[in-house]
C-alpha cells in the first residue's frame, strides 16, 4: 500500500495535526496518562494515520490476566497450516485495549472479561490444581468444551459460556482484522485497481451464473 501514488501527508504534518487535535495524548507516550482517567478519542480524532493499542488510553491487564488471555486467544485461534496463532499478531494487546476503553459498552465487557478470567482460573484450579495458562492443551479443551456454546452449556457453566463467547468474538475480531487474518480467510482487497476484476470462471459455472453484465 505504501507505493500507491496517492496524495499523502508527511509524518511530521500528521504529528502536528494529532497534537493539535483534542484527546491526542497518543504521541506523548504512556506516562502522559498518569495525569488523569482514560479519555475517549472524541468526535474528531485524526484519521489518516495508524494507531496501536495504548495510543488513546492506557492498557490495564495485569501480567497474570495477560497470561490467561494469551492462552485463551491461542486456544481459540491456534497456529495451523494457514497462519500463526492469535497472539502472534498481538490479539491480547487488542483485547487489553478493548476492555480498558472508556466507553460504556467496553466497560460492561470489561466486567465480563475480568470476572471470567477469575472464573476460568478457578475452574482450572478446581479441576487440575493449576492456572488455566499452565494446563495442557487437552486440559484446556476439556474446560472449553463445556463453555464453548451458550445454548448447550449446562447451567453451572453459564458465566463461563458468556465469557468464552465474548473472548471468541474479540479474538476473532482481533485476528481477522490484521493482514495475517485477511490472508488466512482470503481477503485480498484494499489495493488500488484500474478495473473491478472478473470472478474466477469456475466459480460462476459452479453457481450456474452466466456472464450477464
Amino acid at each position, binding site marked *: 500500500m505504501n507505493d500507491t501514488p496517492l496524495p499523502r501527508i508527511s509524518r511530521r504534518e500528521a504529528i502536528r495535526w494529532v497534537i493539535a487535535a483534542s484527546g491526542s495524548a497518543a504521541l506523548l507516550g504512556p506516562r502522559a496518562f498518569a495525569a488523569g482517567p482514560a479519555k475517549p478519542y472524541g468526535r474528531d480524532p485524526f484519521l489518516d494515520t495508524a494507531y496501536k493499542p495504548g495510543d488513546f488510553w492506557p492498557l490495564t491487564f495485569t501480567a497474570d490476566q495477560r497470561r490467561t488471555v494469551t492462552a485463551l486467544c491461542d486456544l481459540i485461534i491456534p497456529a495451523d497450516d494457514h497462519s500463526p496463532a492469535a497472539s502472534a499478531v498481538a490479539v491480547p494487546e487488542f483485547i487489553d485495549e478493548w476492555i480498558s476503553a472508556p466507553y460504556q459498552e467496553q466497560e460492561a465487557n470489561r466486567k465480563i472479561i475480568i470476572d471470567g478470567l477469575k472464573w476460568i482460573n478457578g475452574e482450572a484450579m478446581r479441576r487440575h490444581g493449576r492456572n488455566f495458562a499452565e494446563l495442557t492443551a487437552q486440559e484446556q479443551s476439556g474446560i472449553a468444551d463445556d463453555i464453548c456454546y451458550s445454548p448447550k452449556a449446562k447451567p453451572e457453566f453459564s458465566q463461563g459460556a458468556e465469557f468464552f463467547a465474548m473472548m471468541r468474538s474479540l479474538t476473532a475480531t*482481533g485476528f481477522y*482484522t490484521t493482514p495475517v487474518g485477511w490472508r488466512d480467510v482470503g481477503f485480498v482487497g484494499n489495493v*488500488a485497481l484500474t478495473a473491478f476484476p472478473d*470472478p474466477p470462471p*469456475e466459480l460462476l459455472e459452479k453457481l450456474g451464473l452466466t456472464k450477464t453484465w
Partner: protein
Amino acid sequence: MPFLVSSKTKPQYDVIIVGSGAGGGTSAYVLALAGVKVLMLEAGRKYDPVEETPMFQTNAQAPLRAAATSDKPFGFHDATVGGGWTVPGEPYMTRRQGQPADQFSEASEWQIWGSPQEWFWWRPRMLGGRTNHWGRISLRMGPYDFKPRSRDGLGLDWPIDYKDLEPYYDKVESLIGVWGTNEGLENTPDSRNGTLLPPPRPRVPELFLQKHARALGVPIISSHMALLSRKLDAARVAKSLHPNNPKAEKWTADSIDSRLACFWATDCGRGCSIKANYQSTTVHLPPALASGNLDIVTDAMVREVTVNDEGRATGVYYVDKKTKKDVHVKARVVLLAASGCESARILLNSKSPRFSNGLANASGKVGRYLMDTVGAGLGGQIPALENMPVFNDEGANMHVYSPWWLYKEQLAGKLGFPRGYHIEVGGGRPMPGAGQFDFLPDLTDGAYGKRFKEEARRYYGSVIGMSGRGEMIPNDDSYCEVDPDKKDAWGIPVLRFRFKWSDYEIKQSQHMRQTFKSVIESMGGKVFGWNGPDEKAIAPGGSIIHEVGTTAMGDDPRSSVLNAHCQAWEIKNLFVTDGGPFVSNADKNPTLSIMALAWRTCDYVLEEMRKGNI
C-alpha cells in the same frame, strides 16, 4: 482568501447560504459561478477530504479495530466530524418509550436497534455536512412520487411534477457523476442518454441473488451511485452545464478534471481523497471557490434570520464558535440549507413582533410533515457461496439494487400498505471488521480452535444482507418544534421531536422482511434472526437519516411554508434548499433530489435578482 474569519467578511453579500452539504453546496456552485457574491456559513469546522481521508488504513490500525462507539457510531474511519447521533453541546429533545407522552428528554442514544428513543437525528459539524459520509445512492423520484395524493389519496401532492425537475436531475448527474443503467421501468426514470457512467459488474453474491430474485419477480438492476466508475469527460460536462459562461465552464472543467476514477477499494463512507465519489467538498465547493465569488466562514452557528420593517430578510445572526460572539451578516437574499430540521429550527427561532410564531410560519407548518425513510433488514447465510476460491470482490459500495416493482398490485389495494420500497443489497468479500465472524458460533455449535479457522475460511463471503428503504406518509404525530426551555451551548433554543410510524409503515416493513426471507430462502439460504412479522423490526424514526418535509413547499400559503420555487410565502427573499421543502419522501434516497431542487431554486433566485424582484 475565500475562507474567512468573521471580522473579514464583506459588509453586504448578494446571497447568504446557511449550510454546506448537498443543498448548500449545489446552491453555492450555481450562484457563485453565475457571478453572484455568496457568503456560506457552516456550523462545523473546515474539512478537506483530499488531506484527511484515511484511504487505506486497516481496521487493525484504528482503536478498537474501528468498532462503532458513541463517538463514532459508523466506525472509527467514518468521515463524520464533530457529531453523530448526538453533538456535544448541541442537544435535542425527544420522547422515550415507556415515559408519559408529554415528557421529553435529551437524546442520548447511539445504538438505534432496540433503543427506546423515539427520534434520532444525525448531525456532523464539518464543511460539506453529511455529503462526506453518505451512501451515495442516487435515485430519481418518478412521476408518481410528485403526485402521491392524486394517485392514492394519501399525503400531499408537490406543487411541481417530474418534468419540472427532470432537466435538473440531468444537470446534477452530469456534474457529480452517477453510475447506473436505464431500464425503462415504471416510475423509475431513465437519465438523459450519455449521462450515466457505466456500472461495475455485480459481485458474485449479487449475481446469485439477482438470478434467484428475478425468478420471484423481484427485479435486481445496477445501482445508481454517485461514484466515478471512470473519469468524467471534464470538457464535455463543463460545456454542457455552462454553454454561455466561459469562466464557469473553465472553473468547472478544472475541478472535474482533478477527480480520478474509483480504484475499487476502501469504504466510501470514509470520504475519498481522489474525489471519485461525490462530496460537496470535492465537487461543488472547489469550482465555487475558484470563481472568487464565494466566501466561507466555518464554525458559524446560525441562530436566526433578521428581517426589516418591510418584512424582507436582511441577513442572519450567527454565533462564532471560536470567539463565542454574536455576528450579524447582511445580504439581499437568504438561503437556508442547514438540513431539514436545522433550517426549521432557524425559522422557528427567528421571532419578532411581526413574526411572533417564527419566520415564514403563518401557516404553522414549519416543523410539520416530518418524515424519515422506512427501514428494515434481514440477513442470511448461503451454503452455495461457501468455500469460494480467493479473489478480490471488494468493489465500491453497492453494485445492484431493486427498484419498487409492485406498483400495480399496490394501486389495486392488494398489499395492505400504500407506498413502495426499494431493496439494497450487501455481501461479498469485504475487508473484515469488528464482529465479522460473530455469526459463526451459531452455525458451528460453538467452534473454537483449528476448527474455528476452517469454518471462517468456509463461511467468509457466504453471508448476505438485504435492507428495505420505503416511503413514509406524513402524519400529524410527527413533527419538530422549539423546546420551551432547553438551549444549546450557544444559547440557541433547541428542537424537540415527536415521531410515530403509522400502520402503513409497519406493514410495509413487514412486507420487506417477508420478501427478503423469500429471496434468501430461494437462494437456498438460512435467514438470521427471523421472528415473524415483528413490529419492532422497523428502524426508529430518523435513523435512516432522510429527514425531510419540515419546510414543505405547496400551492397554498395556508398549508405550506414555501411556494413552488422553494421561496417563503411570506418573505420573498428567503429560500430553503435542503430536504425541508420535500412534500413526500419517496423511497428514492433524497440527496439527488435535494441537489436537483436546489439547482432549480437557484436558477429562479438568479432570474428574480436579474429582474430586480428580490
